[in-house]
């Protein structure tokens, strides 16, 4: 079995996001970018499935700007066997929409023939939580979202899902699209020998047009703004004042 793992290059989770002066989005020029943490978890799971002997090949795919190559190199260093870079834009601020991403991934799936697609449940930049679901609909494959445990047995993938108030375990028939949640695993660090070996692993570069997919914009960002800054607190002298304040505010 082949596993496809889409990995997105996003603003590093340690970096404080700053809104661009014109409010059109987050400033991504010259800031640290890294692999979307949920995608890292998906990749780690793919590697574990392969290490258990349940998969032969892991293909990492990234869609975006040329620099997404770095993210794919990280994926190769962690343990992906090869990588495909889809250069869909030359502006890092141009976020490719979930439906377009799903279209591109569906086209790649037809070409590469994986039977399992492991995705992060969402990207930490736009928080859409939509691509995996759209992709499974496009492919007419089974889907399981928010996986916190995965077990592959023959052509069945057993997925424990984190749902409101508990866990749900389902069996999905392979081929399947599975989106992964935070608690599935702890991704490994890429070791130095593997970083060096990644240099020699194949990284193919293609355009959406090669796949017959057109990049379209259906969504429009109207405004982006910083969260309101918290107002300064008030230091009170004693309990009586506190009671007074509470009464004032709740109108008791």
């Amino acid at each position, binding site marked *: 079995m082949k596993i496809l793992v889409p990995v997105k290059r996003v603003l590093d989770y340690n970096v404080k996001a700053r809104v661009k002066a014109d409010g059109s989005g987050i400033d991504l020029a010259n800031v640290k970018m890294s692999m979307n943490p949920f995608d890292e978890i998906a990749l780690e799971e793919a590697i574990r499935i392969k290490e258990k002997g349940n998969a032969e090949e892991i293909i990492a795919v990234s869609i975006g700007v040329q620099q997404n190559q770095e993210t794919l190199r990280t994926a190769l260093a962690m343990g992906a066997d090869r990588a495909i870079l889809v250069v869909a834009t030359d502006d890092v601020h141009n976020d490719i929409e979930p439906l377009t991403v799903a279209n591109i991934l569906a086209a790649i799936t037809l070409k590469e023939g994986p039977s399992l697609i492991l995705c992060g449940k969402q990207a930490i930049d736009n928080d859409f939580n939509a691509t995996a679901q759209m992709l499974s609909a496009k492919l007419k494959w089974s889907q399981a979202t928010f996986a916190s445990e995965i077990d592959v047995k023959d052509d069945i993938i057993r997925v424990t899902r984190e749902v409101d108030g508990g866990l749900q375990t389902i069996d999905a028939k392979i081929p399947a699209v599975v989106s992964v949640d935070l608690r599935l695993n702890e991704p490994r660090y890429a*070791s*130095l020998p*593997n*970083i060096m070996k990644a240099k020699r692993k194949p990284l193919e570069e293609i355009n959406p047009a090669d796949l017959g997919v057109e990049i379209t914009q259906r969504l429009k960002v109207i405004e982006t703004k910083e969260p309101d800054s918290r107002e300064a607190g008030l230091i009170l002298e004693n309990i009586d004042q506190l009671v007074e304040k509470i009464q004032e505010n709740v109108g008791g």
Partner: protein
Amino acid sequence: MKNPFDTPEREEFRAQLKAFVDKEIKPYVNDWDEEGKIPWDLHQKAGALGVWGFGIDEKYGGLGEDDNFLRAIYNEEFAKCGAGGVGAAMGGRMISLEPIQRLCSSEIKDRVLKDIVTGKKGSSLGITEPGGGSDVANMKTSAKRDGNHFVINGSKTFITGAMTSDYFVVGARTGGSGLKGISLFFVEAHRDGFSRVPLDKKMGWWCSDQATLYFDNVRVPAENMMGEEDKGFIQIMENFNIERMCMCASSLGMMKVCLEESIEWAKTRETFGKPLIQHQVIRHKLANMSSKIDALEALVNNICWNMNNGEVPVAEISKAKFFATKELEYCSSEAMQIMGGAGYLRGNPVERIYREVKVMAIGGGSEEIMRDLAVRQMGY
């Protein structure tokens, strides 16, 4: 500013190490330092990252190639955990692995190298003696040939990691006086007549151990002699160069921590109605620290490039080593001043780094010895 020597692999290695240090070390570092040790687990986790594989054959779990930039990156990023003891506790390997790989017999290498490289076992380098560290040529520990064995007598002190190491690279006199009479030996901790006693409390590097080693008629097979007889010192010069370059890179990491902590503090701490960072005197301190960091970084890069290209820039490494520790002294002192009383409280990285300056300035070739060596290299 872009680093002209960066490659995707070096950047990736740095990013992975940074993530590792932030997650696996930083949160625990203060507790470990207070307890006086790191968990052994950490040796193995770091080993899995491949940080001891430089120049080691792939069949022993090594990288199969060497790159001094990667060595420097490892030392700098680990130093950023804010406790030099962590790097030291694991770092006995750094200074003993290279001679083991280069000079030991294949039988010994097959037996031990993989365990050391993967962090399962520890190794240390024993050069310094109770009688003195700077004057290596005057080493007293002796090794006398007895048939197919050598018998070692004497003692070594300040040996980093020695309480937990299984293997030692030990300098001992096999010939006449001076540098030309010294050979290197591979000594296993289980040999009869070998014993070790930990050094008492230290100024810094708390979570690493140092020990005095005693050799009381320790018999090792002649095969345990590393490289050529009486050529031990010449053979280990290259190792000293690497160690010193690595200590410059560690100092660089420590200086960066001092600057970062200073800025974080100065942004929020208010005096006389404005944040510290708005006061000119403080701004000048930050500018000075930052320029010294830039200078050391450029120097380390330059040295790494030369070492990678087969040069042996002994003078430059010697100058870089005392330059690094002098500037580290400056940065840690200024960072303490910026933090004021808060910096004086135990448990913050600046206070710790301030206490760790001296081991950097004395160990691995003291500032005085480095200056002397530099001028000798200049031909005087």
